[in-house]
């Protein structure tokens, strides 16, 4: 399963359980929309850290990095790249 799918499934299971999750896209705001609250964000980070074996610093846990599935994907990818020595700047 790719990164986006893993994150999407987590949010669906944890925050949008039930059959009425229409309208949930990879660009749907998660924090400003109230889908995930501040504790939910930390649970999400905890999940990501364990699942992808990466670590976030407090300043990185900001809505600009985690507001949508797309942004979360980018944040994870950046961490994975820097871990494996891949530069994110072409």
């Amino acid at each position, binding site marked *: 399963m790719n990164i986006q799918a893993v994150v999407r499934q*987590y949010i669906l*299971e*944890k*925050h*949008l*359980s*039930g059959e*009425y*999750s*229409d*309208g*949930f896209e990879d660009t*749907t*705001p998660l924090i*400003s*929309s*109230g*889908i995930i*609250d*501040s*504790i939910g964000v*930390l649970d999400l980070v*905890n*999940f990501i850290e*364990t*699942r992808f074996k990466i670590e976030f610093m*407090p*300043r990185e*846990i*900001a809505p600009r990095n985690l507001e949508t599935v797309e942004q979360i994907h980018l944040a994870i990818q950046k961490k994975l790249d820097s871990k494996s020595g891949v530069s994110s700047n072409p």
Partner: protein
Amino acid sequence: MPEPDDQLLHHWLRRTSERQPTFPAILEDERGTTFRELLEDTQSLSAALTRRGLCKGDRVALVLPKSTEAIISLFAVLMAGAIYVPIQPRWPAERIQSTIDDCVPRFTIKESESGLIIVDCTNGEQLPWREMLASSRGACPEPDVAPDDPAFILFTSGSTGKPKGVVISHRAVGAFVKWSAAEFQLRREDRIACPSPLSFDLSTFDIFNMALVGAACVLVPEQVVWMPRFLTQFVREQRITVWYSVPSILAGMLNEGGFAQGSYPDLRVILFAGEVFAGRHLARLQGVIPHAQCVNLYGPTETNVITWYRVPSGFEPSKPIPIGKACPYAEVMMDSSTGALLAGGESLMSGYWNQPQETEQSFVNASGKRFYCTGDRVSLTDSGDYVYLDRLDRQVKRRGFRIELGEIEAALLRHAEVLEAAVIASQDPEGQTVIAAFVRRCPDSTLSLVDIKTFCAQFLPSYSMPDQVLFVETMPKGNRGKIDYAALRKLYAEKRNDEYPGGRPPVHP
């Protein structure tokens, strides 16, 4: 220590600053502010605001995180004889605005892209905070403030959907602070940390004890408050001696923050309040820091802290932790008919802001005295300690935040496609509050869960958001046509059992 009869919060700051000008008053990240600096800045800002027209009894809205600037601002407001109204910047814009509309401030202090600004609410003029501070050095004559004059207004969840402002006087908060300083032997060598925002009544403890006894107020960076592993590191590295928070934060540090692996020789007092602390977590805490005294403080915003319980070592984890006995400035008793705790004494609120009727309804007269009805049902142990049982009404607590379920219903009902809404609360296996909303939509509505949550986020703070929204075709009703909440709770339990026999599983990586 200031004169024992001095009841004014800003007088405490002045006297302590004169006594120990070079001691640290506020520590925030790498930055330290001494008492002299704090007093000078407070006086300058107070003088500048006064010159701009701030008068005794005016309100000043502080839409600020807990920061050095916020603390300077609140003391400046008090020094001018005015009332500060702390507002969380993270609240939804609509809630911030409705709070401002309600308290009608003379000035609003808030963050902007260009830095901290002071908005003159009479004409909308925006004044840079730093420039205002620099424009006026030195003190100006203070108005005559009485101990019963209001010091601040704390807005809490209101059952009708509109937050209500609890007006607290210098005397009321002073009673708690002075008692806590004496009881826990707070001194200027102490380093106090309390991660609650200014809008939360727990925040009176660290800020005003700093002013009273000269202890350092160590500000917890907002981004680590709910990050247990960094918070644990903060407590250790900042050599915190006195800690005060909601139990959820302590439980997080114990369960996920590696708290048990650390050593905290400086930490001598751990205070907690705001919600029920599970005995098993407390027992672990006592095991990690056997030398620290652990104390349960209790009291709604309307009363400040009114009862307390010092937890004996080796507390039996399966027992509920009592809320204890009355603080010396408070008088408490159990209402014989409802079992609710009634609170009287010096620390009571003055009333609800602009709501005389609601104020009147919240008090009862007993034995010729005025008591606030907390709505918390209690029992009394053989040793004379009160134990919290449950609520008489529909108020719940989540992470120490007070939530009126009616407020969530009111938010849901604002949506044009919602015909009926009912909200219930239950507890998950960990004892955390789970909020479920039942919604009946208009017949042709395609309203989704995402739509509902997005809509509610405009009005509700994140801690009030429902965890689950269940759409129903009909709302169960009782004989009188009222929503049958017991039936909804049953329905919810059944649904949870259907989905997750044996309980909802954690989402594993």
